């Protein structure tokens, strides 16, 4: 399978603290990958680097068929070429309706002029309705997203990500604060999404990772400690010592 994202020798320090230390790994197209690790292992910083929020001190990040270097690009450019990100805390635009949130995320031209003269076609409306169905918010389409429950906001955000049609989806702790039923649904959404694109899930919850049933990368102190199936990494002595043993 082709490599979609290659992180190569990336390091970054904040005020002398090495958050990411010579991190290298690859993600293939249409792969579901879980990234686990104790607090401060650099999971979120890794996402910040890929999405352009943080500029690393050294290293390179290649993306796509042509191997574009993501490090020189702005956040919005990276998002436009197909990297979507879901934050830990659900961040939807609470003042606006579910419909408006999804419509904004829909993959369309992003320049101010084309947005100003944008008129949603029937196709766009159907697309939004379909997405709302997928995330179980069909009946809430015209409610303000601020009124939704925590779990519904998480889904709305996932729906917005799917609307962007990213090739690489970075998901930060999707199950945080969800009820068991909501977790189940979230697993389904993610596994479905990973059939057509690469999905990287950062998660604390081992049960959730087990249900995803995918390759796992363990981060520790900013670099890769182990990689493989969940059973494989949980047998690793070092992993048990730094993470699971505690």
């Amino acid at each position, binding site marked *: 399978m082709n490599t979609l994202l290659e992180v190569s020798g990336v390091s970054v320090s904040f005020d002398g603290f090495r958050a990411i230390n010579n991190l290298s790994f690859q993600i293939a197209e249409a792969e579901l990958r879980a990234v686990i690790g104790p607090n401060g292992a650099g999971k979120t910083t890794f996402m910040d680097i890929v999405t352009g929020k943080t500029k690393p001190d050294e290293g390179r990040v290649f993306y796509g068929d042509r191997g574009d270097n993501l490090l020189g690009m702005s956040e919005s450019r990276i998002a436009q070429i197909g990297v979507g990100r879901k934050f830990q805390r659900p961040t939807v635009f609470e003042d606006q*309706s579910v419909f408006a949130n999804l419509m904004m995320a829909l993959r369309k031209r992003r*320049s*101010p002029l084309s947005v100003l003269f944008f008129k949603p076609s029937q196709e766009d409306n159907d697309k939004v309705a379909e997405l709302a169905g997928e995330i179980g918010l069909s009946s809430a389409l015209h409610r303000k997203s601020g009124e939704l429950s925590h779990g519904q906001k998480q889904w709305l955000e996932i729906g917005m990500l799917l609307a962007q049609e990213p090739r690489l989806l970075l998901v930060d702790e999707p199950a945080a604060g969800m009820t068991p039923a909501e977790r189940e649904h979230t697993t389904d959404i993610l596994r479905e999404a990973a059939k057509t694109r690469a999905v990287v899930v950062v998660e604390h919850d081992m049960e959730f990772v087990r249900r995803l049933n995918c390759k796992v990368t363990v981060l520790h102190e900013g670099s890769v400690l182990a990689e493989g199936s969940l059973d494989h990494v949980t047998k690793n002595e070092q992993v048990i010592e730094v993470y699971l043993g505690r």
Partner: protein
Amino acid sequence: MSDVAVGPVRKPLALRFPSVMVFLAILALFTLGVTILSEGFGVGVISTSFVKTLGKTLCLCLVALAMDLVWGYCGILSLGHMAFFGLGGYAIGMWLMYARTEIIVLESLAAAELPPTPQEVSDGIASQIFGVVGASEFPPIWAFAHSLPLQLAAVVLVPGLLALVFGWLAFRSRVTGVYLSILTQAMTLALSLHLFQNDSGLRGNNGLSGLQNLPGLSEMPQSAVSLWFFWASAVALGLGYLLCAWVVSGKFGSVIRAIRDDEARVRFLGYPVEAFKLAVFTLTAVIAGIAGALYYPQAGIINPAEVAPIASIYLAVWVAIGGRGRLYGAVIGAAFVSLLSTWFTGGQAPDIRLGFYTISWVDWWTVLLGLSFVCVTLFAPKGIGGLVDLFIDRYTPDRHGADLGPDQGALREQEAET
């Protein structure tokens, strides 16, 4: 907010936003009423100077709309938009002064035996205009002052270009929040300090005056001129309102409100946030410039104090008191506060005698304004416009699909019905 619904059913703008129709109807009735009561074309109940005050108020409402768009919708607290307003006024003022002085100079030179050369005419105009600052030559920025179309273009282009360059520098460096506000204050302060200098080419602290006298229309009485400007201001406000309503209605409005609420998130959706901010900043600067160009011929005089930092702060106060994030709120705030201010500072408000001290409103008005600003910020963040919600909510209480409880564990509407 009542007028932010973006639904899958696209109805005409006016139907999706009934507030637009209501606003335009009220504006039309108001214009008609003032015309009927005016001295110029009506029964003469409203004096010409009050017609001018009302016309100026409409211009202030227009610049408040611009402020609401940039602050209330896009979240950029610009404290420099009155600089663009002033620049629009200066641009039109230059032509008004030039053209009127030209007529006077030509009249006086007509008595001479030889017809005057263009150089003599130009020198005559220059010494008339700039004698007050001890100069007798035209500064380079007056190169287009003879041409009304060019100066009208300047009304739009000068504020627009300044906003474009300033905004590009500020937004590109990701200056946001209070730092951006300070930067815009610095811009308007720098502009007013520059204009205060006699060699700025715009007559220093004298400013441009006599702007109420339209060149070539000396026979038309001020009572008629004031009404023409009043009508023009009303039309500009109506068109400005339609433009702003259109801008905030669709996806563009969605995106700029999203930028206001969570800029970083919008970036990760792939929108070039800086380009959007720059577009809104520049558009609103142009609207402010046009409002200024209509305001100052009614005021008759423009001087550098008009672009002092305090003017832009007042603008923000109007919008805050009126209710930001809704277009009619900005208009209500600007009209209400500026008219009240005229009343208080005009000496018409009765003083309050406390025996040991007399509260004279001319001095105490700013204190009252400051207090009401603090109170609105603390206790009624929706401003005067928020009162409209109380009215609308009484008629639209039914919200289907809403949870009956705060989370999924609570009983839902479907369950409650079965």
